C-alpha cells in the first residue's frame, strides 16, 4: 500500500467536493479497492469514504419500486429486501462470505462493474435505475463493458431503484476458486415481459439474453428455451472455463432460474 489521505464526508455534497481533489478516489466497502491498494496496483492521493453518508444508507419502498442507498451493505439487502424482493435478497445473501457481505456495498459493486459481479445482473434484469448525484441512468444505458460504466469522473452512485418483478430468481454457477459467478443468470418476470441478464460470462460484462427474454415472455417455462443457443463469440476464456462452456452454462442456469421462479 502507498500512503494516502482519507476523508469521511457525511453528505453527498461534501463527498462530491472531496472527490474534486487530484487523484482522489471514492471508497465504498473496499472489497475490490483495498486489495488493489494492498498489492500496490493503485496509488490514489486521497480516498473518500462513502460509508458515513447518511442519505446513501438503507432501503425504502415506493409503490412497486425498491430503492437501495448506494452505501447499503449486502447483508442489509439480504435481510431487509426479503419480503418485497426475495430474488434480489437471495442474490445479496450469496455474495462472497459474511465478511464481504458486511463491508461490500451495492453502489461499489454497480460502479465497479466487475464482469463477474452479481449485482449488475440484478440491476439489468430488473430494469433498475441508477441514481447518481447528478442524474438518473437506466441500467440498460449504465453498464458499458468490463469495468466500464456511464459514470463520469467524480460521479457517485447514491442509490439504485429496482422495479419489483412478479417473480425472479438468480442462479449462480461459481468459479471454484473465487466463488464469483463463472456464469450467473438473473431472470425477472414482469407483467409486460421477462428480462434475463447474464454476468460472469461475457468479455463485454453483464448483458441481456434477448432471445431468451422473447421466448420466456411467451411461455415462462424452462422448455421455452429449447432450441435456443448462446453463441460462444465474445465469451470469457480463462483457467476456469472456455467460451463454449460458459455459453452452455448460460442456457442451463437460465432454465434453472426459470424453474425456481415458476
Amino acid at each position, binding site marked *: 500500500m*502507498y500512503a494516502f489521505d482519507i476523508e469521511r464526508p457525511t453528505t453527498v455534497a461534501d463527498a462530491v467536493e472531496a472527490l474534486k481533489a487530484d487523484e482522489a478516489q471514492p471508497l465504498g466497502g473496499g472489497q475490490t479497492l483495498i486489495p488493489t491498494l494492498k498489492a500496490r496496483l493503485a496509488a490514489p492521493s486521497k480516498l473518500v469514504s462513502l460509508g458515513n453518508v447518511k442519505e446513501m444508507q438503507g432501503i425504502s419502498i415506493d409503490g412497486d419500486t425498491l430503492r437501495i442507498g448506494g452505501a447499503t451493505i449486502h447483508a442489509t439487502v439480504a435481510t431487509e429486501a426479503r419480503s418485497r424482493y426475495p430474488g434480489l435478497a437471495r442474490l445479496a445473501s450469496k455474495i462472497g462470505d459474511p465478511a464481504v457481505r458486511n463491508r461490500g456495498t451495492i453502489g461499489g459493486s454497480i460502479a465497479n462493474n466487475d464482469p463477474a459481479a452479481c449485482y449488475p445482473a440484478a440491476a439489468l434484469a430488473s430494469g433498475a435505475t441508477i441514481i447518481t448525484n447528478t442524474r438518473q441512468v437506466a441500467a440498460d444505458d449504465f453498464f458499458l463493458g468490463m469495468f466500464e460504466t456511464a459514470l463520469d469522473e467524480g460521479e457517485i452512485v447514491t442509490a439504485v431503484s429496482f422495479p419489483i418483478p412478479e417473480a425472479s430468481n438468480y442462479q449462480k*454457477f461459481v468459479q471454484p476458486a473465487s466463488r464469483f459467478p463463472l456464469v450467473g443468470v438473473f431472470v425477472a418476470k414482469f407483467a409486460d415481459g421477462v428480462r434475463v441478464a447474464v454476468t460472469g460470462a461475457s468479455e463485454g460484462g453483464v448483458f441481456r439474453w434477448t432471445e431468451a427474454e422473447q421466448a420466456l415472455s411467451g411461455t415462462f417455462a424452462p422448455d421455452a428455451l429449447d432450441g435456443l443457443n448462446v453463441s460462444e463469440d465474445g465469451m470469457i476464456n480463462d483457467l476456469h472455463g472456455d467460451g463454449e462452456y460458459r455459453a452452455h452454462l448460460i442456457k442451463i442456469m437460465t432454465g434453472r432460474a426459470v424453474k425456481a421462479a415458476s
Partner: protein
Amino acid sequence: MPKDTGIGASPLRREDVRFLKGAGEYTDDIKTYGETVAVFARSTVANGIIKSIDTSVAEGMPGVLAVFTGADFVEVGGNPAGWLINSRDGEPMKEPKRPVLAHGKVRHVGDAYAAVIAETDRQARDAAEAIEIDIEELPAIIDVKEALKGDNFVHDEIGTNQCFDWGWIEDNRAATDEAIKNAHHVTTLELVNNRLIPNAMEPRCSMASYKASGDEYVLHTTSQNPHLTRLLISAFVMGIPENKLTVIAPDVGGGFGSKIYHYGEEALVLAAAKRVGRPVKWTSDRTEAFLTDAHGRDHVTKIELATDAEGNFQAFRTETYANVGAYLSNFATATPTFLHGTLMAGNYTVPLVYVNVKAVFTNTAPVDAYRGAGRPEASYSLERVIDKCARELGMDPIALRRKNFIKPEQYPFASAAGLEYDSGNYDALMDKMEEVADVKGFAARRAQSEANGMLRGFGVNAYVEACGIAPSNLVGVLGSRVGLYDAATVRVNATGNLSVMVGAHSHGQGHETVFPQVVAEMLGIDAASIDIVHGDTSKIPFGMGTYGSRSLAVCGSAVVRATEKIINKAKKIAAHMLEAAEGDIELKDGQFSVAGTDKSVSFGEVALKAYIPHDFPLEDIEPGLEETAFYDPANFTFPSGAYCCEVEVDPDTGKVRVDRFAAVDDFGNVINPMVVTGQVHGGLGQGIGQALLEAARYNSDGQLESASYMDYAMPRADDLPFYTVDHSQGTPCTHNPLGVKGCGEAGAIGSPPTIVNAVIDALQSSGKNVTHIDMPLTPHRVWSAMKNA
C-alpha cells in the same frame, strides 16, 4: 473400554488452547527492539539475463539502511540438494548452484535479485521499487518435454535441462520390457499429477539478530526442522559456525513440506543483521508465498500394467517427467525418486517393476516434497491404471486388487520395487472398508441419484506408503547426504515435573499432547506434569525435524529410549533409598517398590533425591535425572489403507460433489485416536483438493496464472463430505518400540485416485466412454470430457 490417559487415550490437544484463542506466538509476532524490515525485489519475468542492476537511488531513499544484490553473495556457498541421484548411465545428477540472490540470470517469476533493509515496511517497499534492473528476457522454459529439446537452458553452465535420468530398478529393466511385450494384456495410461501450491496458513517469515560481542546469530524462522536449517546455513551457505548460530522455529502455522527447506531469505536476513547491526525481519506476503514457496507434485507419467488372462499383475513400467523447477530445493531430488519409485509395486505381489524418472529444470518455482512427497504420485499412477485395467478386463475393481494383494502370511515382504514391508493386512482393510462404507448399498444410492438426474460413481483405492523416514544406513545407500534419526532429552526436574526436549517440530501435528501421553504411560505419572520443548536448537539436543510422517515413529521412539534410561536410573536411586537391590525394584503407577514388599517411594521422591543427593553413593550414581537418546530406525514404517468414495456428477454442468468417503487405515498402534483421525481428515482435505480443485498453472511466458485465491482453488468445508474414518485394523510396526506407523500423509496419498476412479465410474454409468481426466476434475474439465466422449 477407551482409556482416559496415556497410550490409546484421546485427551484434547493442549496446544489448541493457545491456537484457538489467538495466543500462539509466530515469528512475525515476535517484536525486537530496533527491528528493521527486509523487502525483496523479485523478477517479473521467468527467464532473463541480468544486464545491470542500479541500486543508487534506492540506497539514498528515506529510512534505507542497506541494499543487497546477488553480487554480495558470490563468495558464499549455495543451498544444496540433500540427495545425490545418479543417472542410469552412472553419471551423478546435475547440481547448479542455488544462490541467496539471483546473480547473472533470473530463472523464475518471483526469483529475488535484490533486497532492501529499511526502518519501515513502506520505506523498504518504496526503495525496492526504485531499484532499476535491466533484464534481457529469454523465452521461458515451461513444458518438461519441450525443455529437453533445443539449447535454451535454465542453467547454462550445465548445458542441459535434464537434472538426471534415473532408472529403478535398472537391473529389472530388460525383464520388465520382456514381460510387457509378452503379456496377455497391457493397460496403458498417460496422466499428469498436477502441480500444487502448499498454502500454509502462516506465510514464511524469518528474523535474524546478530550480537557482535560474541559473534553470535539468532534466527527465528518458520521451519519444520530448525536443526537442519542451522546445518545447511553453517555447512553449506554462510559458513557460520553451528555453535554461533541458534535457530528457533516458534509456533509455525502449517508447513505441509514447504517449510522443511532452507530458503535464501533466511541467509539474507542473517547477513543483513550483521551488516546493519540491528535485527532484520522479512515476512512473506501471500503473493510471495504463491510465487516462491516450494511447490509440490508436477509429474507427467506414462504407466503400463501387464497382466495374464486371469488378471494377475506381471509388471508395472512407468516413464515420468518430474518438474524440479528453476533450482534444486533440498529434497527435490529424493521426492520423485526414492520416495516415489520404491513404492511403485503398491500393495501387490507383482514380480517386476521398472520406473524411469527424468527430472527437468524449468523456469518455474522450485518443486519439492509436499504432504506425501512422491508417494501420492506413485499411488495415483498405480491405482488409476489398475482401475482402467479392471474395466478393460471386465473385472470388479476390488476383486482385481484382492487377487494381487500381498497376503498377511507373506510378511516381511520384499517388494519388486526394492523395499521390505514389515507388516500389513490389506484384505482386512478392504473387508472393513466394504463394511463401514456400506458398499452393498451403492446400487440403491445410484438409482436414487439417477432419479434426481445425477450420475453416481463409486471409486476405490488401496495404498501402501513408506514413511517414518528412515534408517540412516538405508537412505545413505540411496543417496541421502544426511542421517535420518531423531533425538530426545527427558529432563526430570527436582520437583518432579518433566521437560521433554524433542527434535521433531510441531506445527499443527499435536506433539505437545501426544508425546506426554507416551512418557506418562511409561512412568505412571500425570501427563499434565510433562511439557514438550521443541523448535529451538539451543534447547534441544538435535533433530532432523518433522516431515515424512516421522515424528512419532522416529522421534517418539527416541522419547521412549530416553524415558527407559530415566526409569533405569530412577530405579537405581529408588534401590538406594529403599536399601534394596536394584533388580528388585518395580515401577508401577508412579511408585517404585521392592518386589514382594510394601516398601515403596514415589516418582516425585526419587526426582527430589536425584537433585538433593546428600547420602548418594556417588561412585555408583551421578546426581540429576536427565537422559538423552538418539534413535535411528531399522526400516521405514509402512502404513496402508483401503479407501472408497461415492461422487455425484451433474451431467449438465460437470460439477462433482463428493457424497461419501470412507478411509480405513493401518497405522499400527495408535497413541491418540482423535489426533490420528484429525491427521486423516486433513490429509483427505488436501487430497480431495488436489483431485477436484487445486492447480498451479503457468502460462507459456512463465507467468503463474493461479497466483492468488481468486484463481487457485483451495478446498473449503462445503467442498468436503463427512468422512468415515477407521483405524481398527492396525498391524503393529515390527521394528519400533511403540509399534506405530506414520499417519500424517496417508489421507493425501490415498484420496486422489479414489476420487478420480469414482468420477470415471459415474461417467461410464451414463454410457460415456471416458477413461481418464487429468486432475483437478473441475466442472469444465468433466463437462468437456463428457462432451467429447
